[in-house]
């Protein structure tokens, strides 16, 4: 009998010895040790480990862009402090960084990371080191951005694409230490006009600015695609509706959530809006594709061609951006807010509608020769009465 016991014991030993720790405790269920979390990079470490030699000023990097996408081949690094946050959802898929000793010096650029909830890992005030090698410098509506080479698709219309892939982000973007945030740059009307005149090369674009004395302009701008799934580029005026030139169109919120969009439509606020774009105008959204379009074009709407555009818009409703016009002296500024911003459904404060002057703080960009502001934080913080 003894020998059988020995045999069993031996077998059990063979079975168990493979690696006791690994086999009997094959997964970790304990607590994460406190020490084991990412320490910010120092310049010295990046020099030793990542081949950092020299930091290029963001302004110098942007100056390399010459009206066409520029793949960066040399060992070029920039560093900048995070000045934007996607926490409120108005800025997303990108972060703005700015270099220089203070807010007024240096320049800012958008990093097209192509991910959500970036504020979790890259909070405002964090220094980032960016290895530009392998990335591409490009422009969008005059704003210079750093991303990846553009998609090689027939429909692509951008000079760069989002970086998207975590392995590329991790080999190009290195988190340095957390610093105090830059204060917003106070911008007067004169300074703003000067920057607009200077065009894309001015160093103010992309920075967080404060514009004191802005007054509501009683006008909005928006572009909707009645069936957002269908083609809706400028060659498809049959699937475009603009809200412009007619005041506020009843819009009293900073932007349009899906529910807000449906609400405005149902309330009849946009009944007079016209289908079409440019010189091609079909008629109000109360008409149907069948009424307005030739048979082939109407057929693109399928069974929806019998519905009014208003009904189609409700059927395919989605969150949509809205731009509100403000006037800084004689200069018009658009405050553009995404329909996915958490404050999209917030009402413009009564005082704003009553034309009380406000100070607006946000990222300033140049859009078709005009200044556009994207609020980074909730309007209760970023739009305050003077």
């Amino acid at each position, binding site marked *: *009998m003894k020998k*059988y016991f020995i045999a*069993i014991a031996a*077998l*059990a030993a063979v*079975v*168990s010895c493979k690696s006791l720790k*690994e*086999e*009997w405790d*094959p*997964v*970790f*269920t304990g607590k*994460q*040790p406190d020490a*084991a*979390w*990412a320490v910010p990079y120092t310049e010295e470490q990046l020099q030793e480990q990542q081949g950092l030699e020299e930091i290029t000023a963001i302004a110098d990097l942007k100056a390399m862009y010459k009206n066409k996408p520029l793949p960066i081949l040399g060992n070029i690094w920039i560093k900048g402090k995070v000045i934007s946050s996607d*926490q409120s*959802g108005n800025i997303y898929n990108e972060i703005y960084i700015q270099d220089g000793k203070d807010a007024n010096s240096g320049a800012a650029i958008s990093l097209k990371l192509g*991910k*959500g*909830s970036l504020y*979790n*890992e890259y*909070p405002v005030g964090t220094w980032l080191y960016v290895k530009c090698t*392998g990335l591409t410098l490009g422009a969008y509506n005059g704003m210079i951005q750093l991303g*990846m*080479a*553009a*998609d*090689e*698709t*027939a*429909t692509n219309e951008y000079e760069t*694409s989002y970086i*998207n*892939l*975590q*392995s*590329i982000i991790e080999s190009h973007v290195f988190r340095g230490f957390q610093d105090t945030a830059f204060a917003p740059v106070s911008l007067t009307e004169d300074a703003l006009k000067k920057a607009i005149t200077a065009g894309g090369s001015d160093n103010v674009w992309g920075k967080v600015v404060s514009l004191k004395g802005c007054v509501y302009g009683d006008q909005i701008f928006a572009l909707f695609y009645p069936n957002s*799934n*269908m*083609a809706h580029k400028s060659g498809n005026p049959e699937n475009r509706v603009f809200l412009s030139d007619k005041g506020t169109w009843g819009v009293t919120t900073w932007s349009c*959530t*899906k*529910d807000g969009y449906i609400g405005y439509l149902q309330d009849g606020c946009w009944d007079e809006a016209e289908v079409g774009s440019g010189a091609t105008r079909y008629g109000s959204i109360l008409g149907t594709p069948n009424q307005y379009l030739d048979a082939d074009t109407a*057929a*693109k*709407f*399928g*069974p*929806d061609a019998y519905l009014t555009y208003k009904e189609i818009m409700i059927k395919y409703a989605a*969150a949509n951006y809205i731009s509100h016009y403000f006037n800084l002296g004689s200069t018009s500024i658009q405050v553009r807010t995404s329909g*996915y911003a*958490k*404050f999209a*459904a*917030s009402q413009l404060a009564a005082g704003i509608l009553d034309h009380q002057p406000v100070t607006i703080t946000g990222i300033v960009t140049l859009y078709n020769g005009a200044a556009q502001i994207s609020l980074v934080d909730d309007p209760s913080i970023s739009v305050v009465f003077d």
Partner: protein
Amino acid sequence: MTKRIILAFAALLGAVALFAQEPTGGVKGTVVNRNGRQPVENARLLLMQGAAEIASVTSAQDGTFLIPALPDGSYTLVIEAPEFLESQVQVTVNDGYVKNMFNLSLTAVSQVAEVDDDSFAAFDLDDSGYSDNPTILFGSNDVFNSIAGYNFSSVRFRARGYSSESQEVYLAGVKLNDAITGYSPFSLWSGLNEAMRSKETVNGSEMSDFGFGGYNGLTNIFGTAGEVRKGLRGSVLTNSTLYRLRVMASYATGLQDNGWAFAANVSARLGGNDWIKGVYYRSFAYYLAADKVLNHANTLHFAFFGTPGERGAQNASTQEVYDLMGDNMYNDNWGYQNGRVRNSRVRKTHEPIALIKWDFKPSDKFEGSATVLYRFGKNGYTALDWYDAQDPRPDYYRNLPSYYYGTINGEYVEDLNRNNPDKYLAALNQWRYSDMYSNLTHLDWDRMYNVNRMQSSGRSRYVQEERRVDQRDLNLAFTFKARPSDVVTLNGGLSARINRTEYYKVLADLLGGEYFVNVDNFAERDFSTSPYKTQNDLNYYLINGSAEVLHVGDKYGYDYYAQVRNYNAWLSAKFVAGPFSATIAGRAGLESFWREGLVRKGLFPGLAPNGSKMVDPLTGETIEPTYEADGSVTTSYGKSKVARFFTYAGKANLNLVIGGNMRLYANVGYFNDAPKFNQVFLSPRTRNSMVSNLTTTKTFASDINWQFSGSGINVRATAYWTKIWDQSKVMSAYDDLQNAFSNFAISGINERHMGVELGFKIPTYIVPNLSLQGVLSLGEYVYTSTPTMTQTVDNSAETVMENVLVPYWTKTVLADGTVRQKHYVPSTPQTAASLGLSYNYNYWFIDADVEYFDRAYLDMNPLYRTDYAVAGLDNTITDEEVIYMTTQEKFKPAWLVNISVGKSWYIQRKYQIGFSLNVKNILNNKDVKTGGYEQTRMVDNTASKSRYYRFDSKYFYMAGTNYMLNIYFRF
């Protein structure tokens, strides 16, 4: 089967009468197979007193034996039979009476057919809408089941293509299929193989003594102390696909002279495996039971058991990921935390069962039993949850090369609008050199901890939740058997079930953060200006003015009771006339269920108790209710409407015994069954809304069978035809675009299942003790109706699609009516065959089998079979789109080879030791798909804006060569 027991019993009774006058004592009984209670013929019974052999007899054809003319005293009875393990019992002869040992059960030598249900249970993915539960075939009394049960288990074979819900599993006379889902409940006793070994099974629509049954067989597990093998037993088992080690011990006293029998069984299953990383076991099991024979007519049984423990789960992934990793067993559930493997999806369960059963037999013409069974405890399943953070899953589609270079079947498709060579190459490298990028190709726990710790507020962005399904399940069952005359046997019973299952989430781990908040992430995105809408627990918010701050152990998210009540009565009558017998049976029942919300969800607030609209005290905003299609207010808190169903069923069986060895029998049945709770509520996590047009499922099942059993030959051949109408199903899949569960309620699914089954074991006559064995299951399981589908999203009152036809459900049909492909009931091979040799001599057994499987199909997603999906963005249906979108994937056929070998030894007639080694898939075939599902999303961002594309399907694969070694001993 039933008849044989009756015959054996009758023989026994006859023997009692015959030997009543015998003046001296003796021992008698019936030798039966433990599994199935079949009489064992030619068993050798050796009566020992000390070392002296007193007598030796052989059991008769009906298993009975008698050793007469014994003086009073204590003896040891040793029972040996070919193909069975030796067994011995103590017996005392008193006062010159013949001691009746009743049934002496033997265990078959080949313990091959020990299928671990854990290998099935791992396919429960509550994020995909896909679930695949075990159908385990039992019964060494049935040649088809015993061969198919073991050899087909690795491809998740389902007999006759039926879903696992249709397999009825009873414990101690109580039907224990899950009250909510109907799934078979094997996991409740996994690891208690010894305690639950004794069982009786019928196939198809056959009648059982234990219950009315359905059309997919009934297995009753006895589970009482007297049924556990006597003595002290132990085993050590290792296997390469589930866990490294199982140790198990059992002890049973058998029925003692004082009328008590006790039994205990404990086991532990520990460790990882060779095939799937992250899958591990830390599971234990206990079982305690006692029987008390009060008198000749009354016996009480008590049992209490449970299986506390945890196990890491496996997940399915796309073929792209498997190919990149070079591993079809890749599991995206785990990742490294501080250098150690950690699984995010861990099932943690402890659901004890307590039962009391009373058997009574007031006369030879009447016997009955009554059972009270209670199930309670916890059933948890962890998962990652995140708030305002990136999707942490490594194989999220945007992390894969295909997101940067769009191909279909390896060909670049420009319309997919995905072409970025730099990112494509980077993604390819990230996956191909996964060792270098293990933080990206597996979960990155360290990153999740870091993100949480970077939050100055302390609010975790990533947490681990535990989804709980805690049952309180009270069952009462009464069954009886009466023999009013020699030609009639009546069987019947009553059962009641009261089930209250609580579904909720518990915060399991803050992953380095300090707290979490009970708000709806998705609602917050859309309704941040209406804070009440973002509340998971609106009542808490209304009282406290803010959402609840959560810490580990707190309930959050959703919380509701699924309430189920079920009452049934059944009766069968069996008429015997010579070799003919016929049985008719009927069942009637009432089933009702409702949902009871324990929290008020902000998106579905309903009205205040006084019927008025509530007001958010913080913002002054009126809390607007949402409405159902019929205009009633949608509610999340409190009791829903009650769904009530009257159910009924009827069965008939004809049976002809020819010459003692041959049996010809046929069954028909009609069943009108209630849908299950989880098929009735559209989005039970959030609201009380029910599927409209609820109806019962109707089934007509028929089969005809021929069976031969004798001279070492065992054959069964069956042909069956079954039609099922009006099935409904709710699939819930996590939609990461919506950050919420998307629910597809499908109703009006009809199926037809028909085919043949053949099982045989025949001596070769050339080599002694060598048999040829095989099974063939050839079926056609198809859909025969066009169902309708309603799609809802957990976090929206809107119905995305309502009662939309699913015209491509049954077939892929072109515009001109040409049928391109017929669609099949998925998840089981419709052709399955096995042929092998079995050698059995002197306690050695060797089995070698070759298996072939074909015509297995992928589970279909109804969305892809709608006109909406096929037509695409341009609302035009083309044949190309029909073929692309609606075709059902057929799995490749597979060949497998399995070998089993075992032997047991006896030592001084006191000890027994043995082993069995099963090696499966010797050909190391690693590309056998065993299941999977289609995702419920579509690519719409195309260049042409004219059509949709599917997301890649996800699959499960079978492990390559794997083994199970079991060493067992008995003292």
